[in-house]
């Protein structure tokens, strides 16, 4: 039934977006690609190196370690934040004044600048004067996130969970509120248990938003930098040197622009690949 007259002028409307994307994505990316195949010693002198930097990085144990830490970190925070977010969303009131109050409270951590989050947790967790650090030590735990890798990891994860679980809550809550009352009424009349309501009504209806939540949390946690660098600076030693932190150390600490550029690209490709895998797996069901 369709059959609109094509109007070529419409392409001009796309132009601003094309220009914008070119400036903030394509051009910087191409610069990085350019650096990644060359060596420089300053003075704007460049020597072509081909894929040397890529080979070097892919074979370096430092990169492997950072990648492993990164994967572990992401896996842990996904395993905590997604179920926790869903649980909180389920427990929130569905309507009325309290629903708005809860939503505002939930949104607060998301509104705090990332470096402030890092600084807050740093002070909060300081073993001598921080409320958390001091309390833990007073309770007999041997806690010092600047010295012990385990403490550093726990603090980092606690901070991320505090900062980002809200996002999952908000998305899950949106998914839940799209379920018409009739579904709950029907379930009541059908004699369904609370678990059955969750399994057959709430979870299927939340599936789409949860997919987005997982994808967003995956990408963001994989790229975490600001909060972590402010909190632990990658330490103690290299214990919390996640990929992004390591990358900055190479690029700006050692000024190895070539290897850093190559590492950036590899990092970028890993995220792209994993995101795609996630997406493909999660949407597989809907294909048929």
């Amino acid at each position, binding site marked *: *039934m*369709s*059959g609109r*007259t094509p109007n070529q002028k419409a392409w001009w409307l796309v132009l601003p977006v094309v220009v914008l994307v070119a400036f903030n994505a394509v051009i910087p990316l191409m610069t990085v690609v350019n650096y990644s195949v060359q060596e420089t010693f300053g003075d704007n002198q460049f020597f072509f190196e081909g894929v040397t930097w890529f080979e070097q990085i892919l074979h370096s144990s430092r990169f492997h370690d950072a990648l492993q830490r990164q994967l572990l970190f992401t896996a842990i925070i996904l395993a905590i934040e997604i179920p926790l977010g869903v649980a909180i969303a389920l427990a929130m009131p569905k309507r009325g004044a309290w629903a708005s109050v809860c939503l505002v409270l939930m949104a607060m951590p998301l509104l705090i600048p990332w470096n402030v989050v890092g600084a807050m947790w740093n002070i909060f967790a300081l073993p001598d004067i921080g409320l958390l650090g001091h309390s833990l030590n007073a309770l007999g735990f041997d806690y010092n996130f600047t010295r012990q890798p385990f403490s550093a990891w726990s603090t980092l994860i606690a901070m991320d969970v505090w900062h980002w679980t809200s996002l999952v809550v908000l998305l899950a809550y949106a998914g839940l509120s799209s379920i018409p009352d009739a579904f709950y009424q029907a379930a009541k009349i059908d004699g369904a248990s609370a678990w059955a309501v969750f399994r057959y009504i709430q979870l299927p209806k939340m599936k789409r938003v949860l997919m987005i939540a997982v994808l967003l949390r995956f990408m963001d946690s994989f790229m975490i930098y600001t909060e972590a660098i402010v909190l632990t600076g990658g330490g103690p030693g290299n214990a919390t040197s996640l990929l992004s932190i390591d990358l900055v150390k190479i690029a700006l600490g050692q000024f190895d622009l070539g290897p850093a550029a190559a590492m950036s690209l590899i990092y970028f490709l890993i995220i792209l690949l994993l995101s795609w895998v996630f997406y493909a797996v999660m949407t597989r069901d809907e294909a048929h």
Partner: protein
Amino acid sequence: MTRPGLELRGIELRVDGQTHIHPVDVALAPQGFNILLGPTLAGKTTLMRLMAGLLKPTAGELWFDGRNVTGVPVRARGVAMVYQQFINYGHLSVFENIASPLRVARASRDEIKARVGRIAELLQLSPLLDRRPAELSGGQQQRTALARALVKDAGLVLLDEPLANLDYKLREALRDELPRIFADRDCTVVYATTEPTEALLLGGHTATIHEGRVTQFGATSDVYRRPADLLAARAFSDPPMNCAPVLKRGGRFELADVTSWPAERGLAALTDGPYTCGLRPHRVQPLAGGADGAIRVEGRVAIAEISGSESVVHFDLRGQTWVSQSHGVCGYDVGATAAFGLDVSRALYFAPDGRCVGSAED
């Protein structure tokens, strides 16, 4: 004051090799309703969009008031359209909704006020002008949409099933009003509907449409009483028309295993052979006592429906389903056997190719 109105000359639409609209040659009546009658997806909306200029025909020409407008863009044509969904600007008051086409046309304040006032009066919206569409009933929302279509005095007004989404009482009220609303307006009105009763009550002219083909166009009651073919007759029957295969032999029509009746008047001249006998549901009446002139048959009730003041019964007669429609409320038990009278004196007869070859009225 006869204007030529809208004329479709060989209008045709093909998309990707598929024919969506078969060539149409129709000169619409400049006064009264031009009704497009056909089931869902028959091509009514497509035809309307061709008339409006929203779609470009593959072939053919569109003439309006004696002018070829085939290539003229919609905006330059003076066309107004009302849809099945109540389409209004939710953030504007009823007044602003109605005034919007005039604002686009840069009419003066005073003129807008006067014209909106007049139209609101006509559509009984005057007390509601300050409200938002969401605060109105479905009928009032559709009146607002109608007012917006009428306020700009377009030469061609297209109404695409405007009553379909209303509850039946509101539908009834607005349907009664429509002829009055359009009575003094100098515009060609096209009205699409799936309901034969709506077409009949609105009067005017009707084009029956079947799978992208205009099967007949003429004065509404003519199309209803003298259909050109089986398709046109079927489009104009709800509940569906009874179509029974009959055999004409020796001056009589035979309905296999059931009955036979004499071929009277003009029908006697038909050559012997198979025909389809079309009997509208109200020609099949439940029989309480004797059959006065009608042929008595007995069938098993399959479906019985009551719609306020009418009863519709589907019954099974030797493996074929027949439908009876009668006035008043009569309850039937499904599965029971009941007697019906077939008033064959008012039957339509169709040749095997679908052409209507005669009705007892001729």
